[in-house]
C-alpha cells in the first residue's frame, strides 16, 4: 500500500543521503521525495512516498527513527491529511490545440504561466492522482516536457509535526 511519510530532520550536510542510503541499503523503494528547510532553518522537512506491506512500513519508520539526525517521523497516511504535488507541463499550443489546451487547463484549475506563439507552460497543483489524470486527459502527443515536485503532505487539524 502507498504511504506518505513525513520526516523532520536536522538540516545538516549529508542528512538527505542518510535517508536515501537507508532506503537503497534495505531494499525499500522511494516513489517521490521532497525536502526543504522549515521555518526553523536548523530543521528540514521531508515528505517521502513509498509502498509496502504493513510490516515493511513499520520497519521503514523504525529504521528512519534510528537515524541519529532524524527528529521525528510520522506516517501521514495513517490519519486524515492533505497532500499536494505541483507539476509544470510544457505543451505544444498552436492552431486549434491552443484553445483546447486552455480549456483543459481551466477544467483542472491549472494556470498558464508561460506563453509563446507555439507553447504553454501549465502549472497544476493537486494530489498525485489528479496530476496523473491531467496527463491522461490531454492529447499525449502535445506534451513536450513535464516536471513534478513529488508529494508534500500535512496532517489535518491538530495533527502537528513539530519539535
Amino acid at each position, binding site marked *: 500500500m502507498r504511504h506518505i511519510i513525513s520526516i523532520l530532520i536536522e538540516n545538516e550536510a549529508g542528512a538527505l543521503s542518510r535517508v536515501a542510503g537507508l532506503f537503497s541499503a534495505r531494499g525499500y523503494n522511494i516513489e517521490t521525495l521532497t525536502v526543504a528547510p522549515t521555518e526553523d532553518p536548523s530543521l528540514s522537512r521531508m515528505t517521502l512516498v513509498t509502498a509496502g506491506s504493513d510490516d515493511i512500513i513499520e520497519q521503514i519508520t523504525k529504521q528512519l527513527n534510528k537515524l*541519529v539526525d532524524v527528529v521525528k517521523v510520522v506516517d501521514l497516511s495513517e490519519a486524515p491529511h492533505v497532500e499536494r504535488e505541483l507539476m509544470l507541463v510544457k505543451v505544444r499550443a498552436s492552431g486549434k490545440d491552443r484553445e483546447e489546451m486552455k480549456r483543459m487547463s481551466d477544467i483542472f484549475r491549472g494556470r498558464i504561466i508561460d506563453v509563446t506563439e507555439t507553447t504553454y507552460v501549465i502549472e497544476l497543483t493537486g494530489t498525485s492522482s489528479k496530476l496523473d489524470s491531467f496527463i491522461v486527459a490531454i492529447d499525449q502527443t502535445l506534451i513536450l516536457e513535464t516536471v513534478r515536485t513529488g508529494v508534500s503532505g500535512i496532517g489535518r487539524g491538530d495533527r502537528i509535526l513539530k519539535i
Partner: protein
Amino acid sequence: MELTGAEIVVRCLQEEKVEHVFGYPGGSVLYIYDELFKQNQVKHILVRHEQAAVHAADAYSRSSIGKIGVALVTSGPGVTNAVTGIATAHMDSVPMVIITGQVPTAYIGQDAFQECDTVGITRPCVKHNFLVKNVKDLAETLKKAFYLAKTGRPGPVLVDIPKDVTAQKYAFSYPDSISIRSYNPVVKGHSGQIRKAVQLLVGAKRPMIYTGGGVILSDADQQLGKLTRLLGFPLTQTLMGLGAFPATDHQHLGMLGMHGTYEANMAMQHCDVLLAIGARFDDRVIGNPAHFGQVARKIIHVDIDPSSISKRVKVDVPIVGNVPDVLDELIAQIESSDRAALPGNIAGWWKQIEEWRGKDCLKFKQDDQVIMPQFVVQKLYEVTGGDAFITSDVGQHQMFAAQFYKFDKPRRWINSGGLGTMGVGLPYAMGVRFANPDAQVACITGEASIQMCIQELSTCKQFRLPVKIINLNNRYLGMVRQWQEMFHGNRYAESYVDALPDFVKLAESYGHVGMRIERPADVEPALREAFTRHKDDLVFMDFITDQTANVFPMVAAGKGLSEMVLAEDL
C-alpha cells in the same frame, strides 16, 4: 586557552579517559600524531595494517566494561583499510570511536592525493559519522561521538577531520554533558508490557529463554542469572550472547542456531512462551522464519532497538528498553506474582528437554592418530580452567570454540558474529590484552584465517603480547569445504589451502615461540607448556588436525531449526 585542532583531539581523548589508541600514521593525521608524541597519558599502539587497528579497538571495547576502543587512521587508503573493521563492529553493535584524517578542506572534492569520501563510504556501516569542517565544532563533535557510541544500541562512530582543521586554533573547552535533540534512547521498559510478559511467563508450560549479545553489551549478566534461576526455565544463548549466563549451569542448553545443540534448537522450536532478550532472531539463529512460525508460541522480546523487534519474527509482547533496567522490573514483578504452580507446570517440559539432551549431540571420536579440532578446544578449556579470554576467527574453528569452550563469564568470548570477518582473531587478541593486561588470551584460529592479519605478529612482538595462537590447521577453508561436501557434490573449489608457510619458523622469525603438534597425545602437554613455561611469550601452536571434521549439528541455510543434520545421521 587557544589550542590547535590536533591538541584539541588529544585533550578530548584525555578528557574521555582514553588510555589506548590503536592506529597508523599518515599525511592527514600528522599534526595529531605530533601531539600524541608530546604527551604520555594516551598511549598509541602502532599496528601493521589499519584493519587491525579497528579490530583491536573493537575487541578492547568488547572485552572490557566501560572502556571504549579508539582507532586513528589517515585519509584515503587508511580509511578504506579500516572499513572492514568498522563494518565488523557495526554488525555486532560494538561501541567505538574512529578518528580519520581527511585532506585539507580546500582540497575536498578535488580528487586530492589520498582523498576519499570517508563519510560517504562509511555511512552504511557506522552508527553515525561526522565531518568536522570547522575547528570550533571539534570538541563538541568528539564529545557527541563518544556519547553516541556508548548509549542506546551501541555502535561505531566515526569523526573525519581535515588536516587544516587540526592546525587551526580555537579556545578549548570540553562539554561536561551533551544532549542531542534528535537522539533520545529509551531506558525504562513500558510497565504495562512488562506486566503482560509476567502473566505469560508464570502461565507457561513449555517456556524458553533466548538471549543474545545485547545482554553482554549492556552488562546485564547479573540480572539475567537472577531472572533465569527465579523462573527455573531452560535458557539458550546465541553466538554473541555466550558467557552472559554460565555455560556450565544445568539450565543452559548450549548455543542455538545453525550449529547450536540439538536440545537448544528443539526447545526453541517447540516452546510455548519465548522470552527473547537482546537478541535479534537472525538467519543463523532461527533458520527459516516461516518454518519457525509453524509452531504457535507467544514471544516476548526485550531490546533497546525498536527496529530489532518484529523484524524477522512477529512478536506478541515487545518491550523496548535497556536490558538491565527491564530485567530489574521483570524480576520485581515476578517476585510479587503468584507462581506456585510454575515448577509443576514445566516439569514435563524439562523431562522432554533432558531426553533431547540425552542425544549428546556434540560427541566426537578422538583416536590416537589424528587430532580432532574439538579435542584441542576441549583441552584448551581444561588447561586454562575455563577462565581465558578466547578470540576466534571465522569458520569451523569458531563454531568448535563456541561449542566446546564453556564460557561462564561475559565478555570472555570475542568473535565476529554478524559480519563473520576472517582475520579478526589476532588483532582481537591484541585488543583484549591491552584492555586486560594480566589476562590469559588465546586466539582460536585456522591456517586460512590467521593469514588474513598475520602481519600483526609484528605488533605483538613490539608490545610483548603473550597471546596463545591455537591454529587448527586442517589445510582447508574448513567451513567452505564442509558446505561443498554437503551441498556441492564434493567439488572442493578453491578451498584447499596450498603453499602454507612453516608457521613455527614464521613465529620464530618474529621473535615468538612456535610449536607444531601432530599427535593427540601431545595436545595437552603442549598446551600446558605454552601456558606455564611460555606464559610470557606469544606461542604459535600449529595443531595439525583432521581434514574431514565437520561441525554438527547443522541447520542448513533456509531450513527450519528442528531440521538438523546430526553427526550420527552420517
